[in-house]
């Protein structure tokens, strides 16, 4: 418990004392939002996971595609 508290304080103080780091964290968070929420969800579905339920179906689809 003591260790976890120490780790928490370490990170908390670290973030509090940051200067340029605050801007960087904003950029990181904004970037992760754009990447994972906007880009991934709206534009980049994993097609085989989205369209097929089982690995066997995915394999069948790819086999058909590659032997068209």
């Amino acid at each position: 418990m003591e260790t976890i508290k120490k780790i928490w304080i370490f990170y908390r103080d670290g973030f509090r004392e940051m200067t340029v780091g605050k801007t960087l964290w904003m950029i990181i968070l904004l970037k992760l939002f754009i990447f994972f929420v906007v880009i991934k969800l709206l534009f980049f579905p994993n097609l085989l996971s989205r369209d097929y339920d089982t690995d066997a179906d995915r394999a069948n689809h790819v086999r058909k595609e590659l032997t068209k």
Partner: protein
Amino acid sequence: MNDLTTVVDWSRWQFALTAIYHWLFVPLTLGLSVLVAIMESLYLKTKSEKWLQATKFWMRLFGINFAIGVATGIILEFEFGTNWSNYSWFVGDIFGAPLAIEGILAFFMESTFVAVMFFGWNKVSPRFHLASTWLTAIGASISALWILVANAWMQYPVGMEFDPAQMRNVMDNFWDLFSGIAVNKFFHAVFSGWALAGVFVIGVSCWFLWKKRNQEFALLSIKSGAWFGLAGLLLTMYTGDGSAVEVTKHQPMKLAAMEGLYHGTEGQGFTAFAILNPEKDWNNDEDEYIFEIAIPKMLSILGRHDANAFIPGVTDIIEGRDIINGDTVNTVSYAERIERGKLAQAALRNYDIAMENGDSAAMNVAKADLQKNFQYFGYGYFDDVKEAIPPIGVTFWTFRIMCYLGGYFLLFFVVILFLVYRTRLMERATWIQWIAMASVPLMWVCSEAGWAVAEVGRQPWTVQDLLPTKAAISEIPASSVIITFWLFALVFTVLLVAEVSIMCRQISKESKKNLSPNKA
């Protein structure tokens, strides 16, 4: 242009764009992290404040680059799942395992050691802090290892067996993944990051000198950057030489494209400068070059470490001709590869039908037929051997850009080292300070050119001999790829502008502080 060609081309451009952007951040992370760790080690050893100041300064710039660059590579994985779904499935766990290890490892490394590096000054013991700095550097290189192993596998697919039931490659020997191509690629890319970081440190420090701010700190940084960069560059050249040998062995068509060579000879020269003949094709009698200055025997030395060895050109390879130890050897011609590729595909089609009919005997027969010709599977997608030739001009020139800039940077480091130990000269020579600053972007051009050689030179393959881009692509509308191409161009450009402006602001701000310990 039909829709398939459009989707393939835009998806390739999109992948190239994201990879190029991603690689803007990666080599600086790889190099600067090690340099900072060395500086901190020197601080702990000497207890000299000057090393502490240098460590902290360069660590902050490392932090900016790391924060902006982190996760930019994930976009490439999104593209695998959407644009290149056939490919992602086909490569199976060969790609999945290294990338999964990379993801988990990178997460733990980044969330723990990087945090200690930045937050831990005065909070953890100096030794623990130093260990974290080193582990961050080692972690970054290990992350690169997995990615580069996966990339090398695509260039030289070994250690796997294709299973037509699962339609994917199943790993049968993990250690085979560490082929000569993979090992050279890893060290070449990592050491090129060291050289790049060296040039970056020298360029920024020369700005300090030019502004006449913190000159003592700048000179110390220039010395560190130059020694580190020189070591990195020499190792880059050594491993680049190793890469050329591997390429000659396993991707001869790429080597032929790097040289714009159609008809090879024994004791093949390296074209130092040439104007390529746009009319030249593999099956006509046009000259390869309109104008050419060649270094005799150099390509044979580079590719086969033997001044008199034969290097096959595009036409030789297509026609199935090589000369090994003076004996003419028949290799498999491209016409035959196409034929055998089509046989492999027919066998896979038969396997599919047999599977649907639940006929396991027919499945076994089809599988055996497939295995006989599987090594040429991808050639079955071509109707003309011409489709298997990579873009010659881009490969030829990017190879020269990389090598020539490599030579330039060797001279650069030597001159800088000569000057920096004659302090007055270095402080006064504004011309060299300007050259150093201007060399920073050139180093990135050199590094990106390296990737262009590796990736354009292996076209049309996503997986060498097995899967060309046109088969690897998903059935998606071209319009969506075009939209996301521009979206990425926008997002990444904003990130790049943010990186450069935050970095410049930070450098300017820090330069006004007193970074020389004895005057502090």
